[in-house]
């Protein structure tokens, strides 16, 4: 399948020229086409921020909700219709700041959705304040003396919660990012993909060059099933590893656990309810 099916045609895209979002948009469309996922069977769920505009540049079903709140509706969409591929996608401020509690609990709940986080270590839409992943010392108009909060480490957090799939990519590497995204989307269970992405306007520190120089790929001998090793990799600070850090293939999903699909595989949303008799019996039992 061609990635053309997701193209919107000639549209005005609101991102700055050179923004890492362009590569992520392109590579996600490619990954989805290679996996054979049709636009009608996909829902892109996003919050608010530059990254969260992505559904508007994508020909598919979408739910562009509130800041920090992409994960809860994505979880619910998947559980009422598991036939849909569901991707929750937003930036670092949205997912790790405003929506932090949802991320933690989505990992625990383990819906079979993919969570893509565009991580540029800065707030773009609100013009350049610190984000949860901004590095210590990063100066902004608000953090005038530089950031002193410990940067949020999404990978270490996810691994500590025994997340189902944890990876980090870099938007500057199309092929590797596509490979990681394909694995994440195919993985059964909650898959977190943190994607490093330069912000050409507001982050003059963590540039394309900086990411190139400060990252490296986990090598072939690395075992993503080893949680302790994964945690060690996740807390490395000198150079930041890229790749699939951790996978737990044995976890049951939210959809499997809720019970409505144990005997009937038809999506809950599409099921015709035949409740009258049961309801009548239930009412009669309350006597």
């Amino acid at each position, binding site marked *: 399948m061609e990635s053309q099916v997701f193209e919107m045609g000639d549209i005005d895209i609101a991102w700055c020229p050179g923004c890492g979002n362009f590569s992520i948009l392109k590579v996600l469309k490619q990954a989805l086409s290679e996996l054979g996922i049709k636009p009608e069977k996909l829902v892109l769920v996003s919050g608010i921020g530059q990254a969260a505009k992505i559904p508007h540049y994508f020909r598919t079903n979408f739910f562009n909700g509130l800041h920090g709140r992409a*994960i809860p509706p994505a979880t619910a969409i998947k559980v009422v219709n598991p036939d849909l591929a569901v991707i929750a996608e937003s930036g670092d401020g949205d997912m790790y700041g405003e929506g932090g509690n949802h991320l933690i609990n989505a990992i625990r709940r383990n819906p079979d959705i993919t969570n893509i986080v565009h991580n540029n270590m800065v707030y773009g839409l609100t013009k350049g304040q610190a984000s949860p992943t901004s590095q210590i010392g990063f100066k902004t108009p608000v953090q005038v003396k530089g950031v002193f909060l410990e940067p949020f480490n999404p990978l270490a957090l996810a691994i500590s919660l025994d997340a189902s799939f944890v990876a980090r990519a870099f938007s500057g590497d199309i092929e590797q990012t596509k490979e990681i995204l394909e694995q994440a989307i195919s993985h059964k269970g909650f898959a977190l993909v943190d994607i490093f992405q330069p912000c050409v306007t507001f982050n003059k520190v963590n540039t394309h060059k900086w990411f190139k120089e400060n990252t490296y790929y986990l090598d072939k001998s690395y075992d993503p099933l080893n949680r302790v090793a994964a945690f060690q990799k996740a807390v490395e600070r000198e150079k930041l590893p890229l790749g699939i850090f951790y996978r737990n293939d044995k976890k049951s999903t939210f959809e499997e656990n809720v019970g409505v699909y144990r005997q009937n595989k038809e999506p809950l949303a599409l099921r015709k309810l035949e409740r009258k008799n049961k309801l009548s019996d239930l009412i009669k039992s309350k006597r």
Partner: protein
Amino acid sequence: MNALRAQKKDEVSVVLCGEAGQGIQTVEQILVRYLKLSGFHVFATKEYMSRVRGGSNSTQIRISSKRASAYLDRIDILIPFHQGGIKHVEKRITPETIILGDREVISKDSPLEVKEFIDIPFSKIASDIGGRIYVNTIAAGVVLGTIGVEQHFLTNFIREFFSKKSEDVIKRNIDAIKKGYEVGTQILNSGKIEFTIRSSPRIKDENLLNGSEAVGLGALAGGCKFLSSYPMSPSTGVMVFLSQQMEDFDIVVEQAEDEISAINMAIGASYGGARSMVTTSGGGFALMIEGVSLAGMLEIPVVIHLSQRPGPATGLPTRTEQADLELALYSGHGEFPRIILAPGNLKDAFFLTQKAFNLADKYQIPVFVLTDQYLIDSLMNLPLLDISDTRDENHVVKTHKGYKRYELTEDGISPRGIPGFGEGLVGVDSDEHDEEAHITEDLILREKMVDKRLKKLDSIKKEIVPPELVGSSNYRVLITGWGSTYNVVREALQELGREDISFLHFKQVYPLYEGTRDYLQKAQKNIIIENNATSQFGKLIKLYTGMDIEAKILKYNGLAFSVEEVAAEIKKILGKEKV
């Protein structure tokens, strides 16, 4: 002790008073269930402290020949289970109140608190049977014996009631209920108490429900497939009830990490095609408010069960109030339509919750079911709910290629598709958007979209649930109320026995019924009754009718109105003005 000279011998008000964790709920459950099966009208309401152990809680059980489902001040029989129990309800005790108590407990109270009472050595009897825990079953037996209820199926009932316990525990409970019943019979035979409550075999087949169950059954009847919520008194009962129906009814019930997640999940489920709801209370609802606005913008249906308790902030967590009407009415930034329903009794709670799902789907808006602790925690018999009066409405369309989620239409309602059903694509957006849900800053289109959303109000207003007029249409005095005050005002008016006073009860508080002004104008004297401090519904009426109801009966100490209190307040207002 004098014989009970209750004004109404065809009914009795029993009050149980105990610490949290002492088990008065068990007494309540045994009594209410057995009495209802015996053909008596029953009503139980409780007031309790926000603690798991200790404190002072009370439950009132009314047993009557006629339907009587409102809170009464009057206590005919009081059973204090703990030291301080008498003091807790002191103001409601009259010379006619019979106190059945254990000298061992009551004697520990200060001399001022100790009233005349019939000594029943509950602790002694219980320890003979096997332990302190049997006090509850004994007490239930005492009440049944005292009011002379037939005991022919009592043993079987107790066996079934405790069926999850061991055979030994079941037997001891049977001993306990029999012993209690014996003691009760002795009291009855002593002539100290006399009741003539008539039973009717028809009541046996009626429903016995609390408010949470009524709302929960309404949700099932309304096609609810998804509920996400965060526990908060008094709204949690609905989540508990629906959780227990998950297996049988194809419903997902999820305890969310917080209320923000809960409503965003519910909206997601609804977008995905499953009718959804949340159940919450004031503080939790405060967190959901961004979601209310989201539902307004996305035009996604969601039912919000908001069970009120006194605020601000944490307020009185386990008590009741009607003070979140304005919160529901104005919740959410921006302008968009909504509907607020306010059940007056359990039948309303069932039918209006069911209706809320149809309305939410039809107009693609948030619909509120506004209850409160008093309504939600009340337990009573009512005629069997008839689901043939409910309607399965479908408001979802199969999409076609080129489908536009926000197609501009005559009435503002765009056909609602769901993802994965049809060939079209379904987008929704919290930004102002075009017909295909893409972000727009076309300000002409912005106006069109605002108009489109608000235009739905015109259709909504054509099917407002009309208020119910209780009493003659030739009234001189009109009492206006809403929500859970239905039964109490109704009974207070029966008590007053004045044909010139009628009661206008609103089950839908917003949008306000268009004929409201006509009702009010017809009265020489208008009185409004609300369980809040600022007459929120009165303000809403003034806003939409221009009429200011000056005479107000307001209560905001955390308790529900009592029948006597409402009757007295009405008298006081009318007495002053000689209407």
